[in-house]
């Protein structure tokens, strides 16, 4: 037997204003949370639908670039003649493995690196030579010689890093565009770039490496 929740006099005044006031007083936090969740879902849907296609995903680790990521993105999109409105290049230059005193930063960079590989969304990665070789032991790098279209890159043998007969990387000092950006200028060690073994855009990766080996205009 449900007792009336409201006295009869108020019940007569059930119009939309009272309803809203009632809802607000009792349910405001829940309404806000519901609103937030719906807004988030809509935001994610919109973001997923309007997302520019990623042309290339690059991680330059320990590189200490002198220019901003946006500059590098823009330069590549121009050179590859891709429309910046529908394509984007993701070049991350802020990650560090050995260049930092803070182990937490290293760990976070590592997690980023590994999870992007796990998503098959990383195409090119550059790091210091000792790290590069360490990851080579885990089968990280694709054999450049086996990729179609890589003949251009393989021209100068001493710019290449070989392991077990496979060409796995290119030294950064052989890439003029990288030196123009100020990357990998540490005199103690050489930077090496390689293509990730499970990249889905290997031809684009090669195009990026070609771009890096071209001469800068200025």
């Amino acid at each position, binding site marked *: 037997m449900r007792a009336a929740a409201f006295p009869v006099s108020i019940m007569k005044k059930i119009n939309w204003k009272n309803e809203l006031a009632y809802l607000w007083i009792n349910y405001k936090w829940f309404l806000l949370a519901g609103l937030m969740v719906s807004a988030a879902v809509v935001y994610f849907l919109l973001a997923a639908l309007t997302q520019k296609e990623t042309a290339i995903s690059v991680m330059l680790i320990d590189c200490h670039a002198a220019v901003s990521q946006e500059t590098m993105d823009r330069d590549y999109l121009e050179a590859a003649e891709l429309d910046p409105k529908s394509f984007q290049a993701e070049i991350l230059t802020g990650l560090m493995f050995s260049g930092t005193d*803070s182990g*937490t*930063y290293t*760990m976070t960079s590592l997690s980023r690196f*590994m999870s992007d590989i796990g998503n098959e969304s990383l195409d090119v990665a550059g790091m210091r030579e000792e790290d590069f070789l360490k990851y080579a032991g885990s*089968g*990280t790098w694709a054999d450049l010689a086996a990729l179609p279209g890589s003949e251009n890159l393989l021209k100068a043998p001493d710019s290449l890093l070989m392991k077990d007969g496979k060409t796995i990387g290119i030294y950064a000092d052989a890439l003029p565009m990288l030196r123009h950006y100020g990357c990998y200028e540490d005199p103690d060690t050489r930077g090496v770039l390689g293509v990730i073994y499970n990249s889905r855009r290997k031809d684009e990766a090669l195009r990026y490496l070609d771009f890096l080996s071209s001469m800068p205009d200025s």
Partner: protein
Amino acid sequence: MAQQTRKKRKGGNSSLIFSNKMYVFLIPALAMFLVFWIYPVLQLFYYSITNFNGINYNFDFVGLKNYQKVLSNGTLTNSLKNTMIYAVFTVTLSNILGMAVAMALNTKIRLKGLFRTCAYFPALFSAIVVGFIWSYVYMPGSGMIANLLSNIGMNGAAFNPLGNFRTALYAIAIVEVWKGFGTTMIIYLAGLQTVDESILEAGQIDGCTEWQLISKIKLPLISSTVTINVILSVIAGLKAFDYSFIMTNGGPGKSTKTLMFQVYETAFTDLKMGRASAFSVMAFAFIIVITVLMLLYLNKREVEL
């Protein structure tokens, strides 16, 4: 009404007021938890029986070899020992400090807000900066504490807590307590404020001393708060990672390698994700056992009002 309460619903042990329909409330939280947390953890369990190295996804099953390796090479016992010492130290210190400060702040003194803010301040800063600062505090010779010791005449240069494998663990535990006691204090404050004034007054009228008031009245009444804080500190202590990473990087030797630090090292430095997963599985089992035991023990001691 009486007839309705006598009707037993199917699904046993549910009352009318707290019917099984309440389980609907669980749905959003449970859904997120299962999809974004439990499922990845199950994948971790899966990795523990493979030789996955973190990067290359062409791995094979190796059965229980990872577990055997972990158990046999002694890293588990070392990190277990370190973690237990660290956890016990941080839990006792953090809770006693938090409770003492909360009790002090619960009295009618002036400037309560200021003191509360001061006590909570360390918690507001990021762990990276905190770790860095404390390495300066601990630095031998010119660090803050060393300077203080020299000023009062003791030998400042010999004071090197982070470089000594016997004291390094305690040194970083102190940093953890420094940062964390603010949180325990807040939760104890919340608990203390639910203690009814009249009961305390009755106790004072009956002639209790200050200490008796605390131990016989306040403590039992906030026992659920104590449980919460102790369990949380235990879990946080057993999961300790940040400071052994930021300040000592596991050293000197392997004296500050906690469980989670060892897991990290195996996974990311040695690139043996499969073995690290096996290690984590065993670490989880250990922590769960301890947590459940503590929970059951503390729940039994809770006073129901």
